[in-house]
């Protein structure tokens, strides 16, 4: 491709025919605001029914708990947008936390430990990416393999015990606060902003979506499928390393048994947020909403004093409901934007009210009327 760039177009001569390039289709707004609306409703409900919810300690706690899931889910978003899966992020982060802790304990250097984490994450991502792109192993199988391998190595390295006794300097970092929020939350926010920029603003972000949306079309447009897929797994590997660092910050030790189901929870968060598992459609912003929704829901269940066992039952149910809502939501949007003729699309009255009504009724936490309001 030539390096030549298009010069800014001359003032639009046909401006009167189409006054402004209109980017969004109707229905898309509803699609984008659905999860945030449910989240807001949930937050309003929780703060109204429980005084403890909006306390500073609880809010900090929710954000801290959400951060590891968020980092992994942001990375997983790219993998899923490219039409792949990465199951190795959970045990991968456990292994990397062990590696990082071991290096820190042995060398006494925080920097070396963090460097080892990033290096290990990079390596994990490269292995996943090469197996998928060069050996043409489906990513589900490839990363299932590395998931098991990582878990095994982590246990073998530690005999199942935790690696503690991190340098004092690292503990100080962990307790740092900025504007009242822990450094971990700020770090997560920074990662979010970086990945959001990467997805929305860069050629790479467009290519990821194109490869996930239609690999053949992307290939015939001169996009290298192998390169994009490899980079996506490398990105996920780095996110895994960052999640491992977040884990070290939180628990101050290498945890070989941690995060067993984290990769799956991350995928769930991505899907709950509204990113398509088929690839080609999604955003880290959606994932942010999905993660927050799960975190708040989990916190709400904690506050209500429900036992851990039942909490899992509820969360699993919510995942399934959220995915089915995503299907309904998409069908709704598709019906609005793709009539067989290419004429202007108008929203059909009545239809959208059914979908939002179903969720709250099913989860039993949100009054239907309030959920339906932001839909229009």
């Amino acid at each position, binding site marked *: *491709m*030539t*390096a*030549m*760039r*298009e010069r*800014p*177009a001359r003032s*639009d001569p*046909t401006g009167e*025919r*189409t006054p402004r*390039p*209109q*980017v*969004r*289709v109707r229905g*898309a707004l509803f699609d984008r605001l659905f999860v945030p609306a449910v989240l807001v409703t949930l937050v309003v409900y929780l703060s109204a029914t429980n005084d403890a919810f909006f306390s500073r300690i609880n809010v900090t706690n929710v954000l801290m708990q959400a951060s590891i899931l968020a980092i992994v889910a942001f990375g997983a978003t790219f993998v899923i947008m490219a039409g792949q899966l990465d199951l190795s992020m959970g045990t991968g982060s456990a292994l990397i936390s062990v590696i990082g802790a071991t290096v820190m304990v042995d060398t006494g250097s925080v920097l070396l430990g963090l460097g080892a984490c990033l290096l290990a994450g990079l390596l994990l991502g490269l292995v996943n990416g090469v197996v998928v792109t060069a050996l043409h192993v489906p990513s589900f199988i490839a990363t299932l393999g590395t998931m098991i391998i990582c878990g095994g190595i982590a246990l073998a390295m530690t005999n199942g015990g935790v690696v503690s006794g991190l340098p004092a300097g690292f503990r100080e970092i962990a307790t740092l606060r900025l504007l009242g929020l822990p450094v971990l939350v700020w770090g997560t926010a920074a990662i979010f902003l970086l990945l959001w920029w990467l997805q929305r*603003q*860069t*050629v*790479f*972000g*467009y*290519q990821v*979506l*194109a490869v996930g*949306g*239609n690999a*053949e*079309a*992307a*290939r*015939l*447009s*001169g*996009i*290298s499928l192998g390169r994009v897929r490899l980079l996506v797994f490398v990105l996920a590997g780095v996110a895994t390393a960052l999640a491992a660092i977040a884990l070290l910050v939180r628990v101050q030790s290498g945890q070989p048994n941690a995060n067993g189901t984290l990769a799956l929870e991350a995928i769930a968060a991505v899907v709950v947020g509204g990113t398509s598992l088929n690839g*080609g*459609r999604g955003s880290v912003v959606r994932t942010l909403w999905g993660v927050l929704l799960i975190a708040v829901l989990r916190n709400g269940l904690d506050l209500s004093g429900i036992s851990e066992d039942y909490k899992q039952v509820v969360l699993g149910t919510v995942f399934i409901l959220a995915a089915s809502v995503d299907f309904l939501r998409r069908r709704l949007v598709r*019906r*609005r*934007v*793709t*009539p*067989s*003729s*290419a*004429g*202007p*699309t*108008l*929203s*059909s009255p009545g239809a959208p009210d059914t979908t939002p009504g179903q969720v709250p009724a099913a989860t039993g936490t949100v009054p239907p009327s309030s959920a339906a309001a932001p839909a229009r």
Partner: protein
Amino acid sequence: MTATTGAPRFGVRAAVHDYSGVVVLREVDFELRGGEIHALLGENGSGKSTLIKVLTGAVRPTGGTLLLDGEPVHFATPQQAQAAGVAVVHQNYNLFPDLSVEKTLLASAADVPRRASRLGAVDHRSWRRQVQELLHRLGVDLDPRALVGALGPAERKFVEIARAMVTEPRFLILDEPTASLEPAAADRVLALMRTLRGHGVGLAFVSHRLDEVAATADRVTVLRDGQRVAERASAGLTTAEMARLMVGDRPQESVRPDTSTVRSEVLLRMHDVRCSDDGDAFDIDVHAGEILAVTGLVGSGAATFVSMVGGDVPLRGRAEVDGHEVRLRTARDAQAQGIGFIPEDRKARGLVLEHSCAVNISLASLGRVSTAGRVSRRRLLRRAEEYRNRLDIRMPSLGAPASALSGGNQQKVLVAKWLASGVRLIAVEEPTQGVDIGGRAQIHDLLREFTAAGGAVVLFSTDVREVLALADRVAVFRHGCLSRVHAFDDLDQARLTALTAGEDDSSAALGLRADGAVPSSAAPLSTPIPSSRPTVRMESSR
């Protein structure tokens, strides 16, 4: 319930339908009688597809009444329509390639339990006998045990029709049954339709090939902008009249300009190209400003050649661009040499359907709307707007998904994608398949404009009229290799059809060469490339 006697009739009166406020059918009447073939004509977006959906229960119309033998009926689902004796054959293959013919038919037989089961399990022997009977009745020579995936395109269409006929419907509705078929295969499908007519079945079908409509249909209904503009016997109706009814007063086929835009400069020079394992190698040049049409039957190598030019499949042979030998193994290689490729199946392979038209237009040239890897959304949209105006792409908005566009407009998006990336050569397969007449002329004009500006087009088309309307030279392929290159003015419709079908063209037998020897210099423009093998040997090698 005293139905009027006479031939069975099925149809709809005053059908109205809108999709979310967009009216696509306006009080359309349609009637299909038993024992007739009724063609449904109209451009894309004229409401044909919706009418078919209404008739077959896939869509419930906003207004209007379905009438079966004069009695109002309601179809909530296609199954109900089927039960009432109305079956449909969809445009695209909805078949299971790994199933045998008989299993495929079994999978769609709603009343198998009654007809071929023993204690609830399928009695395969009895079912096979029934399938054989059915195929025999249809006059189709097919082995019930053959795998569908191994069948040719015409046979697959037979299977689809047979599948619809399993339920013994009185009315059969076919959506573009011949769209993806070459002429000989299309003729066989049309012959089958005539057989069914002989059995008293009422057939309605959609086609963009007006000559086959004139040859096959008894009656013709024409839709335009959701309204019925004509319903008449097809006898005495010329294809030109049909086309005029379909498009109204708009211009039809684009007109070949008087002056040639072909330049002497060679853009792409190819040596020792092989399109198949046993086909012979050949050389061919593509000139700036030229439309080189490549045509041939399925399996002739013509489609493979165009895919190789476009980098879809690795080139077997050597390629020179601007006198330099280049690698042409992937689409990326092709793009690096200024070659773009528009595949035949634009939905599956050309567009990212879920993504916006704007993104699709810039997909092959994201670097051009970005600075240091950062995409400028503003520039992306501005350039999409520019091509939307320049190419007259009809889209609800720049952000609308590509899936919302009609076939012709989707094709324009793909052309825009390559224009935007600044390629010099476009390899394109069947650019107007499934595109209506108006869109077809516009796409032809676009390709001509591109060559007039110095670009080159390598066009694969099995549409003889399209080839003759566009091509400066026509490369005819047979049996996996280039047979001969003709100047367009040497050809007419009949001759080109005969040539592609493999008729011996004695005047083409020149320049035979010994095995392995390659003609040294590229043939000058409009001089035939030597045919590589005597025709007689080609036939015997098959």
